[in-house]
């Protein structure tokens, strides 16, 4: 053990932070305290103890393992055990070392005002827009107004016009010389916003539409409480954390670094299967709406696509499918992929222009209902 075990621990915590984990100063202090209850020379015990106090997700274990290996080599140098213990005991009586967590570096990019807003920019298909019009379209999409779609939860809260008597508050009013008149206070179910789950196809055929759609998803994330966004082409990537940056340019550039399968071929069924297996149990609570953008051109297995779509439809409240091709008047869902998913979709809408996306917003606003 080195001369300063607590500094070792603090730099271990910093190493973990550098890898993207959060470790609070409280936790570092607990980690130091835990040495009083384990044998610091036993690697397994140190491993288990520090892990139980630092990570909060099984997915972080690999990172922890890598950093722990480095930490323990430095930590466990020859020295007498009693000496080490007494050093630790005296250290834990002191206040924890507050390690300054490095400030996040934010890009200061300013969004350019596009050319003067031409009304037909909103109506035109995205693929027909030139760069300056695109910038304008992006601006329009990111500033759309939303009213969130709500549903009733099982929680009750005081509400004058409610449907059920609130006994507790009624009783409070009943105490005292008020005679036989009882003012009955009411309560009603609390209203909450529906979560939104967005799945965007980013394969070759979808390119320009997907880009705009991600601007749309970014706007949604800053207006609705719970939005989860995924992209898929050859595999599924969750981009919710990347989209949380306020500035759309920064957010989208983070997305493009995070996503590795831009413009690949599409395997929609496989992507949905991945979502169902890994994410649906965690996100399908709260009766969400699923918003899927794809033209249905699929290279994967159509039976799988049908099955997985059915499963997804069962776990969410409503499925809205956005197909850029659906804007054309003569559109019929003819591709194998679209045919496979059609029975499980609640709404099929176009998504090729700013107007189309505004239509999506209106549809989302109109979806209510208990469950």
């Amino acid at each position, binding site marked *: 053990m080195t001369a300063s075990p607590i500094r070792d621990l603090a730099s271990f915590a910093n190493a973990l932070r550098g890898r993207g984990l*959060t470790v*609070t100063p*409280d*936790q570092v202090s*607990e980690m130091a*305290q*835990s040495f009083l*209850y*384990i044998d610091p020379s036993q690697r*397994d*015990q140190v*491993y*288990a*103890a520090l*892990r*139980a*106090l630092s*990570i*909060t*997700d*099984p997915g972080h*274990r690999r990172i922890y393992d890598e950093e722990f290996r480095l930490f323990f080599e430095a930590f466990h140098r020859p020295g007498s055990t009693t000496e080490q213990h007494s050093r630790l005991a005296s250290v834990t009586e002191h206040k924890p070392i507050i390690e300054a967590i490095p400030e996040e570096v934010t890009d200061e990019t300013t969004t350019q005002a596009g050319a003067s807003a031409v009304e037909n920019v909103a109506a035109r298909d995205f693929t027909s827009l030139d760069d300056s019009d695109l910038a304008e379209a992006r601006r329009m999409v990111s500033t759309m107004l939303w009213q969130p779609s709500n549903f009733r*939860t*099982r*929680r*009750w809260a005081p509400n004058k016009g409610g449907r059920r008597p609130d*006994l*507790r508050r009624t*009783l409070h009013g*009943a*105490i*005292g*010389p008020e005679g036989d008149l009882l003012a009955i206070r009411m309560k009603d179910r609390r209203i909450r916003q529906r979560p939104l789950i967005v799945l965007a196809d980013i394969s070759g055929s979808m390119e320009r539409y997907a880009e705009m759609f991600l601007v749309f998803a970014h706007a949604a994330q800053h207006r609705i409480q719970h939005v989860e966004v995924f992209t898929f082409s050859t595999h599924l990537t969750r981009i919710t954390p990347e989209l949380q940056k306020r500035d759309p340019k920064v957010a989208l550039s983070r997305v493009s670094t995070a996503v590795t399968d831009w413009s690949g071929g599409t395997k929609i069924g496989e992507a949905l299967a991945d979502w169902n*297996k890994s994410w649906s*149990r*965690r*996100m399908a*609570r709260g009766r969400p709406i699923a918003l899927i953008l794809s033209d249905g051109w699929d290279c994967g297995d159509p039976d799988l696509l049908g099955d997985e779509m059915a499963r997804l439809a069962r776990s969410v409240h409503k499925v809205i499918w956005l197909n850029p091709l659906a804007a054309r008047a003569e559109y019929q869902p003819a591709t194998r992929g679209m045919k496979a998913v059609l029975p499980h979709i609640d709404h099929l809408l176009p998504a090729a222009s700013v107007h189309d996306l505004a239509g999506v917003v209106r549809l989302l606003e109109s979806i209510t209902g208990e469950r």
Partner: protein
Amino acid sequence: MNIRQRSVRHMLSSVIPSSIQELATGLSKESYLAADDLTVAIHLALHLGRPLFLEGEAGVGKTEVAKVLASMTGQELIRLQCYEGLDVGQALYEWDYARQMMEIRLLEARGEGQDATARDIMSREFLIARPLLQAIEATADGSRPVLLVDELDRADEEFEAFLLELLSDFQVSIPEIGTVKAEVPPVVVLTSNRTREIHDALKRRCIYHWIDYPSPDLESSIVLKKVPGIEADLARSLAEAMQRLRAMDLFKPPGVAETLDWAESLELLQEGALSPRVIDRTLGVILKYKDDIDSVREAGLDALVG
């Protein structure tokens, strides 16, 4: 001296095992075989006075930990089962409105209605204590009951925020009565099936442990311990078959609870060894979704026997 320092002092004179080895022995005596890292996590939770947060797939033994800790330390187990919409009334306390109304009427009938004050109606005898308050009140004599908050992921975020506050200082302010403080913090075990992400702030307040499926060695030891009379070879082949099943892409992989059910069924059917025929007959014991049963049959039952 804050509440956690008091509890550590108290610990030295209670029945909580003082070393990891003692804890492992104690758990084993209660027929709970824990992996080593789980034992260390439990040990730290007990000695640092932090709640223990257990996450993992269904059926790996999360709830069991609380039950075993209670019986091992000879303390009461107080269980709060979470569900969506769980609120303070159901988790902490509620007033006995019916009795209170009756009391008001009685006072009026006796002619004391004019002088009735809140103190007559809002006293402890009209309060129904629910699990969280029960746990706090049970510490009044210095004992540390085990508080199990089960399936926290089924409750909503408001409840989590409330629980976070409660777990920091174990005191409750009841507006009409006053503050109720715990003498010593109860042993708290929180479990989650991870159907939703619990807020980091709450997890960081606890000793966090993800319980993996056990290794075949550990699982066969568990079967041998909990299903008396079973042959060691059969226990081993069950554990190995389970491991193969979990490696398949099933919608709901079977947990240790299912392994034990399976072992007991085989004992009941007096089957001494695992074969495709036996598996075929008992597949419904371990798999609960038709899709999974179909996939396993398609993959071939002989593959499971190994």
